[in-house]
C-alpha cells in the first residue's frame, strides 16, 4: 500500500515522472536519428535565453508610443509583432487585448498551458498548474488579490481569456502614469511578464 502523500509531494512525483518520460522519448528519437542532441539543446537555448517577455515588452512599449502601431496590434497581433521581427511557434494567431479604465484582462489556459510563446517565452510553472487554471476562471479578483497581491477595483470588469490551441491571448497593459517623458527603452523596462499575463501591473515610473 502506497503511503498517503501531501499534495505538493504528489505534484513533485508527477513532475519527476513526466521528466523521466520526456528524457526516454528524447533518447529514443536521438537513437533513431529523428532528432539530434544539438537540435534539442538549440531549441532549449532559444526558449530559455532568446525568446522571453523582453520581446513582449518591446511590443508593448512600441504600442504605448505609436498609436498607429497600437491599432495594428489590436487588429492582428501576429502580423504587428512580425513587423518587429517577432514571430514563431505557438503564436501563429495571437490576440492582444487592451486594458482600459473599465476593463482589466487576464489570460489562462483552463485545459492545459496554451501561451503566446513568441512574446512571453515559455509559461511559468504556476500557469500550467491546476490551481491557477481552475481558480482564475472561478474567482479571478480573489486570485489576483490573494495570490498575486494585485488589487483590481470593483468598478473595473475583469475579463478572463481562456486560451486555445489556435488562439493565444495576451494583455496590453495600461501605460503607467508619469511616463510622458520616457523613451521607448525606459518604457520597455517597466513592462513585466506578469503585466502581459494580466496578473500584475507594469512597474511604476521611478
Amino acid at each position, binding site marked *: 500500500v502506497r503511503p498517503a502523500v501531501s499534495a505538493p509531494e504528489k505534484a513533485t512525483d508527477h513532475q519527476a515522472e513526466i521528466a523521466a518520460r520526456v528524457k526516454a522519448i528524447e533518447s529514443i528519437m536521438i537513437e533513431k536519428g529523428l532528432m539530434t542532441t544539438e537540435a534539442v539543446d538549440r531549441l532549449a537555448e532559444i526558449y530559455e535565453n532568446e525568446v522571453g517577455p523582453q520581446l513582449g515588452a518591446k511590443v508593448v512599449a512600441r504600442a504605448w508610443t505609436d498609436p498607429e502601431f497600437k491599432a495594428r496590434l489590436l487588429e492582428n497581433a501576429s502580423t504587428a509583432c512580425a513587423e518587429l521581427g517577432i514571430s514563431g511557434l505557438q503564436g501563429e494567431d495571437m490576440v492582444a487585448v487592451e486594458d482600459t479604465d473599465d476593463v482589466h484582462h487576464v489570460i489562462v489556459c483552463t485545459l492545459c498551458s496554451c501561451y503566446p510563446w513568441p512574446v512571453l517565452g515559455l509559461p511559468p510553472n504556476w500557469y500550467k498548474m491546476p490551481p491557477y487554471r481552475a481558480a482564475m476562471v472561478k474567482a*479571478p479578483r480573489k486570485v489576483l488579490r490573494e495570490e498575486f497581491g494585485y488589487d483590481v477595483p470593483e468598478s473595473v*470588469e*475583469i*475579463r*478572463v*481569456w481562456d486560451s486555445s490551441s*489556435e488562439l493565444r491571448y495576451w494583455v496590453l497593459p495600461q501605460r503607467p502614469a508619469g511616463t510622458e517623458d520616457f523613451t521607448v527603452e525606459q518604457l520597455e523596462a517597466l513592462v513585466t511578464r506578469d503585466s502581459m499575463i494580466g496578473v500584475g501591473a507594469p512597474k511604476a515610473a521611478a
Partner: protein
Amino acid sequence: MIYPDTAGNDRGESPEHVYTVRFTTEEIWGAGEGEPNGSITFDVWEPYIVPASK
C-alpha cells in the same frame, strides 16, 4: 482554424470556424456564485455549438 478534435487524433486538420464567445461570471456560475463584474471568453469551434432547444 485547425480543429483540435481531429488534428489531435490523427484525423487531419479539418478546419472549422471558431467563435470567441463571452459569458458573464453570473451566467457561467449562477447568480450569487460568481464574482460580480466579471466575464470569461472561450474559443468555440463550430461543431461544439448545438441548439439549446428545438
